[in-house]
């Protein structure tokens, strides 16, 4: 049985609505897009069950939608660091959403080099939630990052899920160095854009 039970169409609807809201407001007055691409997904059944199990929770729709916050996930990938922060502001201002937690891993990179901006939203919906509240409250997680950070995260993810890597320590160290190189490029590109636009 589906871990989200009868709530799957509800959370799919919320996810699509969030994406549409971001798509409709994700540009400057000049028409320039604030982000390069937006992807979104409902955490698949198997991953959600694994995560619940790892957290010591029973596998049911209540826990999937209350104890976990990433059943609905969106990722906003931007060209420049400043655009990431503009998108953060945009998401804060989305109607029917309130930010209940956010972490700036761009300002405070994780020790392995991971950089991104994370937000957990409480989204209000006309449909009742798992506690029977009307309007209902549902969680959604948003990750925002630059293309460079996205490329890095993709590779790090691949390494993490690969079993038995022979020289893991060395690869981790080099990944950390790449994260620092990419961050340097992001910052330099940002600076150059400012210089170009000031002219």
């Amino acid at each position, binding site marked *: 049985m589906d871990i989200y039970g009868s709530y799957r169409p509800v959370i799919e609807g919320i996810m699509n609505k969030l994406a549409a809201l971001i798509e409709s407001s994700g540009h400057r007055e000049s028409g320039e897009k604030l982000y390069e691409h937006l992807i979104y997904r409902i955490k698949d059944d198997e991953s959600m069950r694994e995560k619940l199990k790892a957290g010591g929770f029973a596998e049911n729709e209540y826990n999937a939608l209350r104890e976990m916050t990433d059943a609905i996930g969106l990722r906003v990938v931007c060209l420049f660091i400043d655009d990431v922060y503009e998108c953060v502001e945009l998401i804060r201002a989305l109607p029917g959403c309130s930010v209940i937690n956010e972490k700036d891993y761009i300002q405070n990179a994780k020790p392995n080099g991971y950089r991104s901006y994370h937000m957990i939203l409480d989204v209000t919906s006309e449909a009742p939630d798992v506690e029977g509240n009307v309007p209902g409250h549902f969680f959604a997680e948003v990750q925002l990052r630059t293309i460079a950070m996205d490329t890095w995260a993709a590779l790090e993810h691949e390494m993490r899920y690969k079993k038995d890597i022979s020289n893991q320590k060395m690869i981790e160290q080099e990944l950390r160095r790449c994260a620092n190189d990419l961050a340097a490029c992001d*910052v*330099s590109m940002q600076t150059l854009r400012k210089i170009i636009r000031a002219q």
Partner: protein
Amino acid sequence: MKILFAEDEADLQDVVKTYLEYQGHHVTAVDNGAEAVDMTKTDAYDAIVMDIMMPVMDGISAMKKIRESGNTIPAIFLTAKSQVEDRIEGLDAGADDYLTKPFSMEELNARLRALHRRMRDYKVRTLTYGNLELDTEQSELKAVNTISLALKEVKLLGYMIAHAGQDVTAGELLDEVWPGEDAGDDMVEMYISFLRGKLESVQANVTIMGDRERPFRLMETI
């Protein structure tokens, strides 16, 4: 200090070795240039003291071989007073200093200390200021976060750290970071902007003041 001493005159070798050891150094004495070259291949020394005129291999040839192998350890030559050419050739071969025979042991020891001091300065790898750590070998800047720097940025920031709290002009920075290159004040300003972005990115409590009109200055913000 760990000193390699090459001298073929047995009496002189003995006297100098005894004196330097009495001064707290560890001395390995060899009788000619070839032995000196061999020793540098297997052991790390803080300094070499070498006579020029030696059998088997003279000091200048030995010096050249040592430098060709990439070894940069400080070296002092001992030369006869009359041999100006020897001194020039010795310095050109890679020696850092020389003493003419007869020499004062105290002076030899003082020169060794001076060379050692300078080598230590050269080897400073991590520069620090405020909460900043600049790893000049890895080209890495660290405060709360870590970020990579371009080589020019390392040189620029290294110079700013060495002159922290002081006014530094764009001209000075051009001479230091872009010597002999086709670069102007615009280039300095752009690299200062790059550095400012990176200082902010690692959450440094350090900032670069100054602009087109006023000299630059590295300062702590707290």
